């Protein structure tokens, strides 16, 4: 259970479209203390963040705006360099914008655009366990083997400059699997649903928040 007496080690941001339950279950297995909230004060107090997400980009951004937490997040993550891990849609909203269901502005924490996976010769959505090519092992991938598979489930991907990419995967071409820039991290796959490899990645993120 999350320990209410202790200050949580990470805040899982609940913005109404997430599957934060799965993320919490994974944190519980790893015995990290966490809290779930979208409250401004909780965000200011937290040492690190996980931004989960299952859903559509437009709805996600509307919900983040509706909860008035974009500026406080920007201040804590970009200003104070508190680590944030975006997962799946939570990674995509870190981009400048997305073309999912019209053009919508994102948080802009990492330069890049969310676009439909090119599907001349593959089925979209990209669903299932795929291998990665890791460009930046430290900190997210230090504990996983190079042939580890992670669970993906998405139709859009984060097109960004290679200097922001931590890992890529092959699906009808090269697509971004993980990003990192300053204290901002994001993974397109679901570590909370990728069994041992996923738990190792989450542990590496959490360890890194304490440096």
């Amino acid at each position, binding site marked *: 259970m999350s320990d209410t007496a202790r200050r949580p080690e990470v805040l899982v941001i609940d913005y109404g479209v997430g599957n934060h339950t799965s993320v919490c279950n*994974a944190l519980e*297995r790893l015995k990290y203390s966490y809290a779930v909230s979208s409250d401004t004060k909780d965000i200011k107090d937290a040492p690190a963040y996980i931004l989960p997400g299952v859903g559509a980009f437009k*709805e996600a951004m509307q919900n983040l705006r509706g909860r008035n937490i974009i500026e406080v997040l920007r201040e804590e993550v970009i200003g104070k360099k508190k680590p944030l891990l975006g997962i799946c849609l939570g990674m995509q909203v870190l981009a400048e914008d997305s073309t999912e269901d019209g053009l919508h502005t994102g948080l802009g924490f990492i330069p890049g655009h969310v676009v439909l996976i090119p599907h001349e010769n593959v*089925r979209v959505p990209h669903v*299932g*366990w795929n291998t990665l090519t890791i460009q930046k092992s430290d900190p997210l991938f230090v504990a996983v083997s190079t042939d*580890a598979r992670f669970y993906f*489930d998405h139709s859009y991907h984060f097109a960004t400059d290679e200097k922001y990419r931590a890992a890529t995967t092959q699906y009808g071409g090269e697509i971004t699997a993980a990003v990192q820039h300053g204290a901002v991290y994001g993974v397109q796959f679901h570590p909370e*649903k990728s069994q041992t490899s996923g*738990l190792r990645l989450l542990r590496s993120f959490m360890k890194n928040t304490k440096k």
Partner: protein
Amino acid sequence: MLSKRIIASIILKDGIVVQSVGFKHYLPIGSPEIAVEFLDAWGADEIVVLDICASRENRTMDGELLSRLATKSMVPLTVGGGINSVEMIRQLIRKGADKVVINRAAIDNPGLIAEAAKIFGNQCITVSIDAKEIEKGRYEVFVDSGQVGTGRDPVEVAQSSTAQGAGEILIRSINRDGSKKGFDRELIRSVSEAVDVPVVAAGGCGNPQHIADAFREGHADAVAVGNFFNFTEHSVTVTKAFLEPHFPIRLDTYATYEHAALGGDGRLEKQSDVVLEGLRFEYHPKEII
């Protein structure tokens, strides 16, 4: 490279896991919590849980049960049964579902697919189609656990569902369900050639060779296997060991099966006494994350 998915399918009736045979007979197996825990530990790539009573009782899967199942599963959990509103989907996701399965509503209210895909994204919406071969090579979609014919063709339903925004099609043969005769490859191929979203084959798996056939001849991207996994020891791991030389498959276990022979029915054969003797004193550490 993307691996072929080996999905474990759990059918729930009155809160317990059952074996379904031809959508007519249901034999009790046991607790869903234990089934999920084991299938996760054995390395299933995904777990689909379908509550076949929900639709009739005008509800969806019990949220408390789903929460308990979700804590046991570190692989994606796909949930279905009685879903007929966006609100139900929202509740299921909050309780730990990663994807949802729409069955009857895809026929009665296809607008729900579009509405749900707009909110949750199409990758979250699987449409399941139960098809019965009514004469040689002609199929009809049935709803209400295979009881009610709709007069519609599965290929046409698959196409119209993906046009609405379904991100995946699960196609199940009613004739083959629980038969152990293998997947209906013609049915699966007709659907997988007609849509450009992933297609999951279901109904009839009796041994790992059937899965290979569904991939090779049915062009399926994944298979959903129920009874065979529930009733066969080491089922998921052994199946994966059998398939791995021929297809991209996720292996994430200490068990290698390199000394083990697989029989014609895909079950493990007894190892030689020398190998077994050696195993007695081997140290098997628990994985450290």
